[in-house]
């Protein structure tokens, strides 16, 4: 990685002997065509290799007539980033790439920007008293990097002591508005908190406009270009944080001598946040108490660890290639002890304390398994393979639950995952070589590749995982309407079946010649798409794909096949 950076720098310096080119143009307000002064323009060259991080280019600013000149450009393909206060900044590069030849002055680029809108209002309690420090978010239903349908924040504000909020520079469109957040009740002092004198333990019931507790009862509002929408007011219920109390027992009615109680809060818009405190468990009678729990949906997790045992590394969420831009849930800092038993209960906290919650722990059980490797002999390439169970809920991976660490197989392929706490998991194999793919995963007779693995305390099933080195390799190019190569665009591979498995998707960026390579593709039928503009991860949305189904380039991948497929860029606005 470091080396790559150095190489770029050297290349830039060497290239500086070439006569440099320029890009000139004008930034205007869409529809009216009025020039925008003070807009910031950056010319970004796609990286010469997809793995390389893009470098931040210098910023040029438009003059009073909206004109800009990007000077001193080495020959190459550029995309322009444009941003102006009060206007929508395109999420991705909206303009067509600009090819700059040695010494060429490219001119006449016209970039229209859409004026953003603003929304404001008051948040009061049911008695009409203003509520301070309440977050207000504009939310849009989207897909995240795991292919989950979720809500993305398109702007947010926080009320002041008068209960006023204002969310500004919102991209025009329809949004849900949410006041209050189940996650941010316990903001630690001074990190983002408006005042250290805020009252701890205060919360409001997360409420969607107009005063609905659930998204299903919400009405979306329309933010119009260049307009202020005022009076989006809320009357929300002020709530005290609650307490959750209960006890931990095992099947025989005994309780552990030490345990960690975790509280995982499910965010109203997807994602989780959690906290844990060893002090909340009383080993003398097996009781626990969690304080300051905001109303909302939570998971209470108890983990019994074996003291002194080395902790497994933190399981990382699976992020498909090219999907690393959005981080929603991050791992846990620090080492972890080995969980020997645990339990998890979903709790909805509303208007009262939760008492007598019983967490019945089941001791971890061992899972015996067999790793079969096809088409590769055991050696350095396969030594790095590890089988891992990642906790999931309804098939979706969650991060705050302990899981057995990645386990290597023995010479003969057998492996044992120790101390697996009963629950739901997704099976993963890490350390896959570029051409490897997971061919099959079975627990007993059940398919656990396309469905989660559900473990009971009494199981004796075996986990069989088949990894094959015969993954397909798709290569090709993305071309525009004039059959010219398109550099720096995302080439997206979408499976025809099992679209609920993000690991079957690929998202790679084309190089300077518009070419791409996708490795380790499981056999099956796929389509390759390339959108000029696309919201992140939109391809996980079945409705989105349905609109473009005919525009994808079909490709059949067989084991060890190397199909070539060229796809046509789907222009913006189609």
């Amino acid at each position: 990685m470091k080396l790559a950076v150095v190489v770029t720098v050297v290349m830039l310096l060497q290239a500086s002997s070439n006569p440099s080119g320029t890009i000139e143009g004008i930034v205007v307000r869409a529809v009216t065509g009025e020039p925008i002064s003070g807009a910031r323009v950056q010319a970004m060259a796609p990286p010469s290799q997809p793995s390389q991080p893009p470098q931040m280019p210098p910023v040029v600013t438009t003059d009073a007539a909206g004109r800009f000149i990007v000077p001193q450009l080495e020959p190459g393909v550029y995309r322009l980033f444009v941003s102006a206060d009060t206007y929508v900044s395109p999420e991705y590069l909206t303009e067509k790439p600009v090819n700059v030849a040695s010494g060429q002055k490219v001119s006449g680029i016209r970039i229209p920007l859409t004026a953003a809108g603003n929304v404001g209002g008051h948040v009061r309690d049911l008695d009409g008293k203003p509520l301070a420090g309440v977050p207000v978010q504009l939310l849009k239903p989207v897909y995240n990097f795991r292919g989950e349908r979720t809500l993305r924040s398109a702007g947010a504000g926080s009320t002041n002591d008068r209960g006023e909020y204002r969310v500004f520079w919102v991209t025009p469109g329809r949004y849900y508005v949410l006041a209050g957040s189940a996650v941010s009740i316990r903001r630690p002092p001074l990190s983002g908190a408006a005042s250290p004198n805020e009252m701890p333990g205060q919360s409001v019931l997360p409420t969607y406009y107009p005063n609905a507790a659930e998204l299903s009862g919400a009405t979306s509002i329309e933010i119009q270009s260049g307009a202020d929408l005022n009076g989006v007011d809320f009357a929300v219920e002020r709530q005290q944080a609650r307490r959750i109390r209960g006890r931990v027992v095992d099947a025989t009615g005994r309780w552990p001598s030490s345990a960690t109680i975790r509280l995982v809060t499910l965010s109203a818009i997807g994602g989780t946040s959690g906290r844990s405190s060893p002090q909340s468990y009383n080993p003398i009678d097996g009781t626990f108490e969690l304080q300051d729990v905001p109303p909302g949906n939570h998971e209470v997790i108890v983990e019994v660890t074996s003291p002194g045992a080395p902790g497994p590394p933190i399981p990382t969420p699976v992020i498909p290639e090219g999907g690393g831009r959005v981080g929603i849930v991050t791992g846990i800092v620090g080492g972890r002890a080995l969980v020997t038993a645990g339990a998890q209960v979903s709790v909805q906290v509303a208007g009262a304390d939760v008492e007598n919650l019983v967490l019945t722990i089941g001791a971890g059980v061992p899972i015996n398994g067999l790793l079969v490797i096809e088409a590769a002999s055991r050696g350095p390439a396969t030594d790095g393979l590890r089988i891992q169970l990642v906790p999931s809920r309804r098939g979706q991976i969650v991060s705050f639950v302990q899981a057995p660490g990645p386990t290597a197989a023995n010479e003969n392929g057998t492996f044992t995952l120790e101390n697996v706490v009963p629950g739901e998991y997704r099976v993963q194999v890490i350390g896959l070589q570029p051409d490897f793919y997971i061919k099959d995963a079975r627990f007993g007779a059940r398919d656990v590749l396309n469905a989660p693995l559900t473990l009971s305390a009494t199981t004796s099933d075996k986990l069989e995982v088949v990894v094959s080195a015969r993954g397909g390799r798709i290569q090709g190019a993305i071309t525009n309407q004039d059959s010219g190569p398109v550099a720096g665009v995302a080439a997206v591979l979408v499976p025809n079946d099992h679209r609920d498995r993000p690991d079957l998707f690929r998202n790679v960026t084309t190089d300077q010649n518009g070419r791409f390579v996708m490795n380790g593709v499981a056999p099956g039928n796929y389509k390759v798409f390339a959108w000029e503009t696309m919201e992140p991860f939109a391809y996980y949305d079945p409705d989105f794909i349905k609109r473009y189904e005919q525009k994808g380039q079909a490709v059949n991948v067989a084991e060890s096949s190397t199909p070539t497929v060229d796809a046509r860029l789907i222009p913006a606005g189609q």
Partner: protein
Amino acid sequence: MKLRVAAAGCIALVFMTSFVAPQDLSKSSIEGAVIQVGTGSPIPDARVMLMGNPALATITDRFGKYSFVGLGPGTYRIAVAAEGYARQEDGQRVLGGPQGQGTALNLTSGQALKDILIRLTPTGTVTGHVRNDRQQPAAGVQVQLVSPVYGPTGDRRLMSVGIGRSNDRGEYRIYWVTPGRYYVVTGSDFPGGSYQSIESGGLGGSPNQFQGPGYGVAFHPVVSDPKDATFVTVQSGRETNLDVVVSQKLYRVRGRVVDARSGRPPGNARINLQGRRFLEGAGAVTRTLPVYDSATGTFEVRDVPPGLYYLTANLQEPRTAGAGTSRPMPIAVSGSDVDGVILTVEPFVSISGRIRIDGPPLSAQELNTLRVNLQLSADGKRLADTSFGGIGGLRTPNADGSFILRDVMPGEYRLSFFHSPNYYVKQASYGGNDVLNQPIVVSSSPSTLNIELSPNVARITGIVVNSRQQPAPNIQAVLIPEKDRDRAELYSSATTDASGGFILTGIAPGDYKVFAWELLEPYAYFDPKNLEPVEQQGTQGNRHGVFGCNNRSAHDPRPLMFKPLKPTTDTAPRSYLFVGVEDGAGAVGAGVGAGGEGSGSGLGAGVDDGRRGGFGAGIRAGAGANGVLGMSE
């Protein structure tokens, strides 16, 4: 420090026992009311928090009354928070001061404490417009009120007491501010991080905000150095209007890198520009992209907002042969580009040393906890505003006391130690020079560091009394050396118990004074200007003792008598929040937000990158960090 922790553990243990005991009739209670200071009017809906074991909370009724019943015997403190009032602990002397400084209530079995009145002070508001240098509203700009406080070694730092953020009209409003005098800080040190989602603990904003270099950290009125800043006074119950200006101008920093060995440009160097750390708990983020030309040795960092920075160049990866760095170069970017900066890189050196004991050898455990650190200094003063950290963090020395400090860049440092309280550092020399009271200057040809520890530490016991000669509980007794006052480890403090008594342990022989202030902000005693007025008083009357402390007479069992001094410094409310000292990761931890240990939704990528790109982040940030902290308590 350790002692205190151990004591807390004991209390917890005692409580556990009582918790499982069968219900008895000897439960205790605390009750009282929360009222407004001055007017005495009751404050309903205030949250009263009982800190002890168990920790409980309740809400005052419409008469401002609260009660806690069914309590076990033990020590409790009470804190109160209410909307529109400054958070206050019962018995707290400094408004907005640190937690845990209030009066401890000792509850005996069956005792009913009544009429515990807690008076709250109404907060103030600061509001106004943020405009850019073209007089247009500046959106999404963070505006912070900060209070100058003392760090645990007497260094000055700024603690945030309130944050606001401007909207598209440039309006900001910082509410519920504890009355006091504050600096106003605009902008933030995080490039491209202007939009922070609520779920990641941020204050929101718009994703359409420009994500590039924005407004750097500046003090009102548009100055880079806090020395040039003006205060804003926040009054109780009042709204203060303050319009601020932020500069949008960006500058370049240019210079060249020279390898000290060859006098030529190094083949490979990485340039880092980090903001100087003023704000408590804030991490320094490496900003902008460094471009280094190995042919000419020149570099240029573009798009730098005005501010105070440190610039460094480092060679290759740390911990490999030929790795090295330049000393952090202070840079002030203000009103113009900065040119002609010369960064001289030198390879790291290793310093070998030896610890000798003036007495029986250290136990294995004491040897294991021993640390020797080097902290960057200039003119003998530790640089507290760099996150470049200390060097060393010596792991367990060999059994014979020998050790090696690796990867030390040549330059000036102060030594710091972390050792068992049963020892003091008797002397330290480097190449024959005293480096205990003087800085250590490391050149490219290192010398040997010799450290002598002595077990002959002194212990001081005493009693603090008030003007009526009655014992003064919950007062800090501070031991201050007569000379070498730049050695923070010679200072010591203890809080008096219920009978006014205190014990100071692990004292190095020498001449000291003991002071006891009735009201003094934390660590302010490191500041000579706070000592000067009382220093003279001391030689007269009985207000504080001046005494020689050596390893014989200090064991004199007779307690010394001390009287708390009247407040002598500016009595403006100050506040202090304890956050890690040198750890550059502070801001990162803070940014994680929502949920305490183990949480984290959406850690700012920019922050993460900044850290990784930072100078020697991994190797030394932590190393030098903890020594001083441990020393001072």
